């Protein structure tokens, strides 16, 4: 990349299409030019890149840029004719995963010479393998695995079936025996084609699938979808319902961070720490069930509002105790040198790496990036709440743990502060012939959903971009940073991503 002169302004004027979202229709030449310009804008990052194909076979490419200082998302729409689309990853490496996905799904290729990687299409996929696009499938020889094994190194295959409680994932560890030289992942074993399944559905059914696509982020991804649906309908949800949503979202963050810390103990072999963290986790899940009727907060949201109000008395009674217990566990962990030693300087991601790959969530914050869509792109009720993103330093496993600990405390306060305002509430939303972007800060970071409705109110195209899609791309960087074999599970626990979210 060229040296960046950091400017604050956006290169061109874009029309605002919804609060916090601007859009523009451009051609492929402009897309490259704008990407180039945006690369120089301070805190502007590529948040997503995806394609859609009309029934007539017209393909449109959409690039979503987030300008975090101006609290704006930019949706750039660019028609693609022919078999090539403008490659953005030469300018912005964060685009690479999405470019490979577009190639697999739509059989159009980025116009660069780089070999592509396999993302969600299995190597043995037949011609009939369900895809989003209609063009004939690309020849598979075009897709390469990324690893190179040479010299003393060999590839240690691991997965896809793994230990109990760990999702199916294939890891190719390239090693000389101890140090991990390279690592590549295959997520395709869990690809269920959720984006494809949403086409033709009504909003409510789409929410059902979106919550079950990546259940540990059911509220985060579900809220992003609901907000996209509501934005497309031009609707605003009742205030009490917005507070209820925020309470569910923060409870989701709290239990996930506790689970990540339990898993970190599991991977360092600290059974006592794991047991104590899991006791807290179980308390938090029971609290979710007492507050909302579901341990993992499924079916709290509804397009246009919420399905239920929380049992605020249960939260007020149980949350402070569970969070206090969590703090005691964490203090004990931080005093356990044998544990802390395994976390320090393990799986380091520098701030430059995090920015280069446009990472999101606690992972990016632990590397020193001030990025949190609750603060950067606020919507009700976050625009009324006091937020201070927890930014860490060092970018190692310990930094991630500390960011999560700080976020649990912050989320606890957010939940308790809103209990008086939360309630039920739901309005009718039936968007027709409209499209919109929605977002929410899930426990793992910014979740994005873009959805387009046809004239009958069914979904034409839904793009789901959970935080996992963003953040898995940094896993090999973190794994390569002078780590040995046994560090890999520790790094995975500290990332605490879902395979389900990436493979969707």
């Amino acid at each position: 990349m060229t040296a960046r002169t950091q400017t604050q302004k956006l290169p061109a004027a874009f029309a605002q299409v919804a609060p916090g979202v601007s859009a523009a229709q451009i051609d492929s030449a402009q897309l490259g030019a704008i990407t180039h310009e945006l690369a120089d804008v301070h805190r502007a990052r590529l948040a997503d890149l995806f394609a859609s194909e009309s029934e007539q076979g017209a393909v449109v490419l959409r690039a979503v840029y987030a300008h975090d200082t101006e609290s704006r998302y930019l949706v750039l729409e660019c028609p693609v004719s022919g078999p090539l689309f403008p490659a953005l990853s030469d300018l912005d490496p964060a685009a690479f995963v999405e470019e490979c996905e577009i190639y697999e799904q739509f059989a159009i290729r980025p116009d660069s010479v780089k070999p592509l990687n396999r993302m969600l299409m299995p190597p043995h996929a037949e011609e009939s393998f369900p895809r989003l696009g209609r063009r004939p499938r690309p020849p598979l020889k075009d897709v390469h695995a990324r690893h190179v094994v040479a010299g003393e190194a060999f590839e240690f295959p691991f997965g896809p079936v793994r230990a109990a409680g760990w999702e199916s994932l294939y890891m190719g560890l390239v090693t000389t025996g101890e140090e991990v030289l390279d690592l590549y992942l295959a997520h395709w074993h869990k690809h269920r084609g959720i984006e494809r399944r949403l086409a033709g559905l009504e909003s409510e059914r789409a929410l059902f699938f979106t919550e079950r696509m990546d259940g540990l982020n059911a509220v985060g991804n579900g809220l992003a979808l609901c907000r996209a649906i509501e934005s497309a309908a031009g609707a605003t949800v009742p205030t009490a319902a917005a507070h209820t949503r925020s309470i569910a979202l923060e409870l989701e963050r709290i239990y996930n961070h506790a689970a990540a810390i339990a898993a970190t103990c599991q991977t360092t072999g600290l059974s006592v720490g794991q047991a104590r963290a899991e006791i807290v986790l179980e308390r938090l899940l029971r609290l979710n069930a007492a507050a909302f009727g579901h341990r993992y907060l499924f079916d709290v949201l509804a397009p246009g509002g919420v399905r239920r109000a929380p049992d605020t008395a249960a939260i007020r009674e149980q949350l402070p105790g569970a969070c206090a217990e969590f703090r005691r566990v964490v203090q004990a962990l931080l005093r356990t040198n044998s544990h802390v030693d395994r976390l320090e300087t393990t799986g380091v991601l520098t701030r430059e790496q995090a920015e280069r790959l446009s990472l999101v969530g606690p992972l990016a914050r632990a590397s020193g990036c001030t990025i949190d869509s609750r603060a950067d792109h606020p919507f009700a009720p976050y625009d009324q709440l006091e937020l201070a993103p927890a930014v860490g330093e060092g970018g190692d496993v310990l930094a991630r743990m500390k960011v999560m600990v700080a976020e649990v405390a912050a989320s606890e306060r957010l939940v308790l502060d809103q209990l008086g305002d939360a309630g039920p509430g739901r309005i009718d939303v039936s968007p027709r012939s409209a499209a919109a972007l929605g977002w929410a800060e899930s426990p793992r970071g910014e979740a994005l959903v873009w959805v387009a409705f046809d004239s009958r109110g069914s979904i034409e195209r839904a793009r789901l971009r959970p935080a996992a899609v963003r953040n898995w791309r940094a896993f090999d960087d973190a794994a390569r940073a002078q780590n040995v074999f046994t560090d890999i599970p520790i790094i995975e626990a500290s990332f605490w991503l879902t395979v389900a979210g990436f493979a969707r």
Partner: protein
Amino acid sequence: MSEPTADQLRRRALALFGRSLHIRTVDTGSCAVCESEIRLLSAPPYDLHRLGFFLTPAPRHADLLLVTGPAVRAMDNALLKAYEATPDPKAVVAVGACALGGIYEEDGLVHGALDRVLPIDVYIPGCPPSPLALLQGLLVAVGRLEERVAALSFDLVAEAER
């Protein structure tokens, strides 16, 4: 789980195998929440180990397969290998609405229900089934294994003992 059930389970597992029961899990496309509940089985509030159950990473040591997800076709190979590597008598437990066929329609990506791929002994409903529901399902699976051992011919038993 109430103590009589826990006791009952441990005694039956012991009587049946003269040792603890080993469980191998396979995820065929879950949303990660069923995995989370399985993970909690060994946490102190449920403590699977006190019941004589152990989670094993090796199918060859397993008596029970605990399978989540809608049976994504891309997992066929790995799933069948795990099944074949698990020695007889074995029981297969389908975990969660996905595995039972309640979420995904069959298509080119998923079978949509686990029993389209493997013979299932016990179905545990729920989205997700709570850890208690999982323990209840394991108890039923032990019952199935008992029947299966009882049905073995004497020749086979003698052979196994030799």
